[in-house]
């Protein structure tokens, strides 16, 4: 590990710093919230940032900082689970389709193509309407996974198709490797970097799709997510009223989180390239 970090480029450090910051904010800080920040009037309304309320309070008397930690927690969980599941499923099915070929490939490819053609948001809006105007996060997550796995799958399949022709795959087979081990140990590393990038992008897609739903009032507004935070802020005209911290903090959180993840992934890929190239 030490030698690994000794060469880490600056962007990797910065990215890790940001990601750790958000993990602390969303993963650890919520445990320390003095009161449930979702409850209204636990604080005076419309306070500016200050010593007592670090990021001020909302028009509903909620502490923006603690609300943000709760929102981050839920959004992070959603984003990470959606990204994790769809990347894992996508990569696995993509590898399987590309490597196995035949009817499996055809069936999987059809589903990939079909799902890619269907725009998610109208479906989510439809489902939201069906679920009585509010979609619980798990359902949003599930739908996002269903509609997002084809992205990595299609890419991975294409890579796997070319990989199948590569000689070292034959060598691996003659080394007695099973199909699964060939997929995992020999083909996967070639798409790992790409998968990481996809993962990061999907984190963002997850978080921002939920935000979009929330903003048009189709997510359950009583849950704290970055999206519902924006929803409430807009509902109370935070932007026009100049309560920039309230509306700005979730937006900035999304942006910084993405930047953090982006820096980590690009930093890591530079890192691993350097490690493999170094003599």
């Amino acid at each position, binding site marked *: 590990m030490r030698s690994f970090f000794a060469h880490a480029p600056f962007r990797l450090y910065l990215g890790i710093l940001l990601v750790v910051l958000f993990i602390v904010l969303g993963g650890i800080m919520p445990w320390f919230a003095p009161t449930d920040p979702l*409850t*209204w*009037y636990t604080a005076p*309304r419309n306070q500016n940032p200050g010593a007592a309320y670090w990021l001020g309070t909302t*028009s*509903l008397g909620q502490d923006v900082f603690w609300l943000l930690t709760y929102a981050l927690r839920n959004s992070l969980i959603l984003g990470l689970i959606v990204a994790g599941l769809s990347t894992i499923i996508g990569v696995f099915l993509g590898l399987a389709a590309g490597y196995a070929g035949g009817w499996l490939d055809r069936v999987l490819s059809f589903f990939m193509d079909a799902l890619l053609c269907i725009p998610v948001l109208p479906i989510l809006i439809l489902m939201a*309407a069906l679920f*009585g*105007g*509010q979609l619980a996060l798990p359902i949003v997550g599930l739908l996002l996974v269903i509609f997002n796995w084809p992205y990595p799958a299609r890419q991975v399949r294409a890579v796997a198709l070319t990989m199948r022709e590569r000689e070292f795959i034959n060598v691996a087979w003659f080394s007695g490797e099973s199909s699964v081990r060939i997929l995992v140990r020999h083909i996967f590393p070639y798409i790992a970097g790409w998968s990481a990038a996809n993962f990061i992008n999907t984190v963002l897609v997850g978080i921002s799709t939920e935000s979009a739903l929330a903003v*048009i*009032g*189709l997510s*359950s*507004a*009583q849950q704290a997510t970055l999206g519902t935070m924006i929803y409430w802020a*807009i*509902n*109370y*005209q935070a*932007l*026009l*009223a100049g309560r920039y911290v309230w509306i700005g903090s979730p937006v900035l959180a999304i942006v910084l989180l993405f930047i953090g993840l982006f820096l980590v992934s690009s930093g890591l890929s530079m890192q691993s390239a350097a490690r493999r190239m170094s003599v």
Partner: protein
Amino acid sequence: QQMTDVGTPRAETLIVDMLNARVGNPTNMNMYQQGVTINHGYHQMAGALLYDIDTAKGVQIPDLAAEMPVANEDFTVFQVALREGLTWSDGEPFTADDVIFTDNMIRDTPALGYSAAYAAQIASMTKIDDHTVEVTTTKPTPRLAIVLGSVIYGNPFHVVPKHVWEKEDPATFSNFPPVSISAYKFKDYDPNGTWFLWEKREDWQNTDVGQMIGEPKPQYVLFRSYGTEERRVLAMAANDMDILTDISPESLDILRGQNPNVRAWFSGFPYANLDDPCERGIHFNTSKAPYDDARTRWALALAINAERASIATFSGMMRASPLGIPPTTVLMDTYHQPMAEWLGEFALEDGYKPFDPDYAVRLGERLRSEGVTDIPEDPEALRELLGVGWWKHDPDQATKLLLDAGFTNDGGEWKKPDGTPFTINILAPADFEVQSQRLAFAVANEWNEFGIPTQVQQMQAGAFFTAENTGDYETGSYWGSSCAITPDLFVRMEGWHKDYVRENGVPASSNQGRYVDDELSALIDTLRAVPADDPQIVSLGTDILKELVEGLPVIEMFGTSKFVPVNETYWTNYPSADNYYEGPWWWWTNFKFIAAQLEPVQQ
């Protein structure tokens, strides 16, 4: 000369916010077809009803009719005199033939959604002379003017020009561009339905408005939609909008900050007009346990801190009401204040007196301490402003009631009588009715605080009303039957009759709370037979309201505050608290009377 973006001189154009945002099918103005929206100006400026409403006095007035209907003894045959000297916008005179034609057309065209409903009430219309019609009803109808004219918002009975419609199939006729009867005629529109332009008729003298008020000043009235609330607010701030329909108090705050010419109903606190004819509260499906027990409902009412809920909803700019009718200026005088004494003495079964007359005083203090100015010091003035009082916030009594009703509480967790955990799900509007929506969250916050886990389930209009009507809910935040505008409460109170109760799953047209109260139903039956101008009306109404307090099928909370700002940059003499010639209901049919009284600002 400054022009609007639709090409009219700005100084001669009155720009009005469109109630339901943009219109998807702008080239259909057949008001008898389902799914045709006409509140883009036709409803407010171009059409006219037989009877309209004077919202300041709370009485109906004749419009196309020359006077109120004259009934026979048993209220089944009426003489309706029509206004003389009116012409349609194409110059044809308006006569009894148009009314008769309209009557026949509705009755004979089942494809019109209104047909069956109309025929169920009106048996026939016959022509007496060119300006008199005789109306026969299917059953005694003491309130014919309500059946054929507007009390709230409007009425489906629109007289159509015979010479135009007789050539068309009313089921498919698009009525575009429409021939109008009132002082404005159709001028231009946006194919995407975001705006509609109406122009003053040269022959405005031959219209209802011309005869009743005189020449309207605006040469053009532009109805337009700016979409989301932020945009509507920005539009008015930028002087691109003269009259806005409902917005939130925060938006009004911003507007006042941005543009000194913007004002609301009151020039100071609470800014909003408090005379909306429907009040908001939390209602129950009383057919579902545990809400079928009045004690449960009372406990939940006492678990609410109404001051906090008021601030949470609209920053306290609301008038509280413990009664089942809105605390409007007219009704406060007729019911709320006279009933205050009874309310103070009212006791629950166990003798507990729940009423708290000092609600307004405490809220006033609290608001003052938060720095709100313009709060009166005098307790009576405060009660007049913020309501005669409300139920106490008494968690102990609430606990007692719940325990009495068979609930249990172990370790802070409430269990229903059947032993399952007590959690509440409040059905709330998602994208409309911001006050009901916020009220739901505010009440949920209170109940959560009390210890009952409460969720707000927001639904789009379609889903929301389906759930309401089919009884697919336990508690909801909306207005239900709690509407009234005149001292005669029959119009909506009728809805509490047990006859309208339907099984859960079957849609109900009214009494969605499925509330069965024999005494209440009996009172409604009595009221049904009493005409609107009978002096008994008020005492009957009072009895009905008492009945509703006892049973508490709805936790009535606040009159609706309408933040309906106007911009005085181009036009003045809008109605307001200081200039109360009409209520600020821009989206009702009587808006044309308001528009006719606006004055241009000398630039």
